[in-house]
């Protein structure tokens, strides 16, 4: 494997070099990485939709209306309605809230937890590292969806449980990325210098090493966010994810949608599009961030 240390081109935070203003950075990012900018816009739209769901929705997402069963998209129901007469547009909008909450919570939970494990494991090294790595291997050996499935079955369908179920497979992946980053930084000169000066390990770990793993960490989060949203959708589709009455994009696609899809294709089209756009945006943004923050990390 290539032995070049990672993050060599990022300016070490601890040396206190002056950084350009935030807006300039943003503008430069948009110019250099238009795809990433698009991704960013998509994510912002999703975020705002989730926050302002109540204002944006036209109907109560869980209110049924027999007379409006399977209505075509039109002025009454912008994206049509499902077999129980529930407005698809409002459900998609509220579904953003569910997907975002579940996706972000599980990603952050898994990444932070995994990141800390990776940080300590990589920094301390030795036997602790070896054992931790084996434990991470164990968790990672199981495919994401299968692990989440078993956990979901184990814990039962509820939002906190789904978040937990999705976050656990993220832990080993986060740990591995952060650990790799830490391993390279650890050998760098300014860290050795800090050690020579006599700073305590903990201080070095958190004040010097950690900030420089931020790059890979952000990249990891955006990448995992997309996958977390997809896993939540798949779990809900299989009936093991977010339960009623919270509208979940994945669950909107299961059973009833497939059955009525020929009469009302909008049942299947819009929730699926919503999922795809959200994950797409997160992937685009993640890619662009990775290219910017950590060019060397492109390959991993």
């Amino acid at each position, binding site marked *: 494997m290539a032995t070049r240390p990672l993050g060599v081109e990022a300016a070490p935070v601890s040396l206190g070099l002056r950084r350009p203003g935030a807006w300039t950075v943003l503008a430069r990012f948009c110019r250099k990485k238009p795809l990433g900018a698009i991704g960013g816009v998509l994510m912002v739209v999703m975020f705002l939709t989730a926050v302002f769901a109540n204002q944006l929705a036209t109907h109560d997402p*869980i*209110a*049924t*209306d*027999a*007379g409006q*069963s*399977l209505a075509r998209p039109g002025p009454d129901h912008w994206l049509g309605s499902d*077999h*129980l*007469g529930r407005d698809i547009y409002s459900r998609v909008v509220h579904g953003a809230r569910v997907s975002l909450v579940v996706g972000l919570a599980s990603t952050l939970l898994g990444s932070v937890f995994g990141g800390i494990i990776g940080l300590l494991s990589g920094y301390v090294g030795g036997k602790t590292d070896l054992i931790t790595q084996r434990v991470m291997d164990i968790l990672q050996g199981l495919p994401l969806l299968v692990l989440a499935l078993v956990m979901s*079955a184990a814990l*039962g*369908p509820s939002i906190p449980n789904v978040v937990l179920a999705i976050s656990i497979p993220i832990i080993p992946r986060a740990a591995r990325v952060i650990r790799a980053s830490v391993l390279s930084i650890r050998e760098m000169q300014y860290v050795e210098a800090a050690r020579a000066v006599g700073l305590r390990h903990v201080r070095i770990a958190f004040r010097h090493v950690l900030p420089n793993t931020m790059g890979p960490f952000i990249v990891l989060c955006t990448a995992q966010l997309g996958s977390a949203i997809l896993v939540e959708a798949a779990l809900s589709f299989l*009936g093991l994810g977010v*339960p*009623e*009455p919270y509208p979940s994009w994945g669950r909107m696609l*299961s*059973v*009833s*949608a*497939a*059955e*009525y*899809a*020929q*009469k009302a294709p909008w049942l299947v089209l819009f929730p699926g599009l919503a999922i795809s756009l959200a994950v797409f945006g997160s992937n685009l943004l993640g890619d662009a961030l990775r290219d910017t923050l950590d060019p060397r990390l492109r390959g991993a």
Partner: protein
Amino acid sequence: MRRSRIVAAALSALALLAVAASPSSAETPKSGGHLNLMQREDLSQGFAVHETSTIATSFPSLPCFNNLIVFDQTKRAETVENLVGELAEKWSWQDNYRNLVFFLRKNVKWHDGQPFTSKDVKFTFDMLREAPDAPAKLRINPRKDWYTNVEAIEAADPYTVVFRLKRPQPGLLVMLASGYTPIYAAHVNPAAYRTGCIGTGPFKMKEWRKGEFVDYVKNPDYFMKGRPYLDSLRYVVIKERGTRTAALQAGQLDVSFPGETTKTAAEQLKKAVPGLVITPVAQAVSDNIIMNTKKPPFDNLKVRLAVSYAIDRKALISAVHQGGAVPGASQQPKPYGVWGLLDKDLIALPGYGKVEDMKAQARKLLAEAGITPQHPLKVEMSTRAIAMYVDLASFVINELKQVGIEASLKQVETAQWHPMATRGEYQIGANLTGLGVDEPDANYYENYACGSPRNYSQYCSEEVMKLIEQQSQELNPQKRLALVSTLQKKVEADAARPLLDWRLDYFTVWPHVKGMVPHDNIYNFGRMADVWRDK
């Protein structure tokens, strides 16, 4: 004068002869061919019908078995008049409905060549009623309660069986015609039915590829000469609903699964393939609300009644089933079932009148119980994590909200549902109940009798128990009907398990499938001996 009379007589005789000679149906059945039937999930416990209560096992097992008697597979209505003998040639009640005698068919062979005798019948029913000297035991016995009134079963000679009852019970006869009452072989370990099938039926089980299909081949030694018409059957397992419907539409399946085709799906199918034959029938499956009568708040009759009043039955049928259901009380309504209440009695029940009046009545009852918009009632509604159940629950929650009951939905996984319901670990639930046969004894003992494990509401009323026992022994049909009507009204008035509606199935077959007549009960048709292919 005499000549014209002779001519007239001769002409009418000729006419009669012509009518008698021509077949009653327009076509003559052809022999041969294969059919693909739908199976909505893999068989739960193989062909062990006596150990399960699900159509997923009973429907694909029907071709393998025979009953003593069944409901005519070529007629839709399940009535006493339509009973035909399979393994029994003749039967009769004796001693004022105290003894039921069956004269069995001779020269019937099991699929492994062994002869069928009364021993097999005695074996099956002694096992089912858990007789103290029964030679075998079922691991799970859901319909033990059907046979509590059986004192003994006598097999005096190889072709006669007598059911001796403790007291008269006219209803026992139809219970033996259900798809849930096949005859097992006495020389086969009951556990073996979980992996294979040895029956006397029109088809022999050739192969069960787990999760894929069940293959049947014609039984050349079937006791009905000339039957079955078909050479082979395949029950194709497809779990994904969309894929299932698409397969039927694309012609990869010839027959739909009983109970799986909603009105909207049928309309879609008909539009895509106008030639499909769609027959709306009742399923004998009802939507109902179970409430834990042993704990507050549903130990209060007023609160329970309020729930029943709050749910607009017509709106439910429209919203949840798009019109593919009918209103009824605890017995399947006419014309689908024989015990249904008269229309005038039905609309007098809670939830059938004008919407505003019903909701107002609900609010009034709740107010009397101390629940007002300022002090709303917060409950948890449990339901199984299956779309059918969840749709029902979502609608009901919405209805309850309008009268001041805030219900949150809790989805319970299949494995948890029955233990939860049986142990009373819930407040209110949205439930579906299937009746194996349109017989009050099968219904009330199971679902409303004190202490019955499937009486999820844990409802216990002495008055109702008396009524149940009374109607069970009533020999006069009119009197019995009157008793059952009273029973239905009383049970709705106690609102322990308000009945919401009875589901319809839009049973779909391709036009080349002939002779497959759905019944108003999803559990009792599908023997497949009279079905043939026209192509």
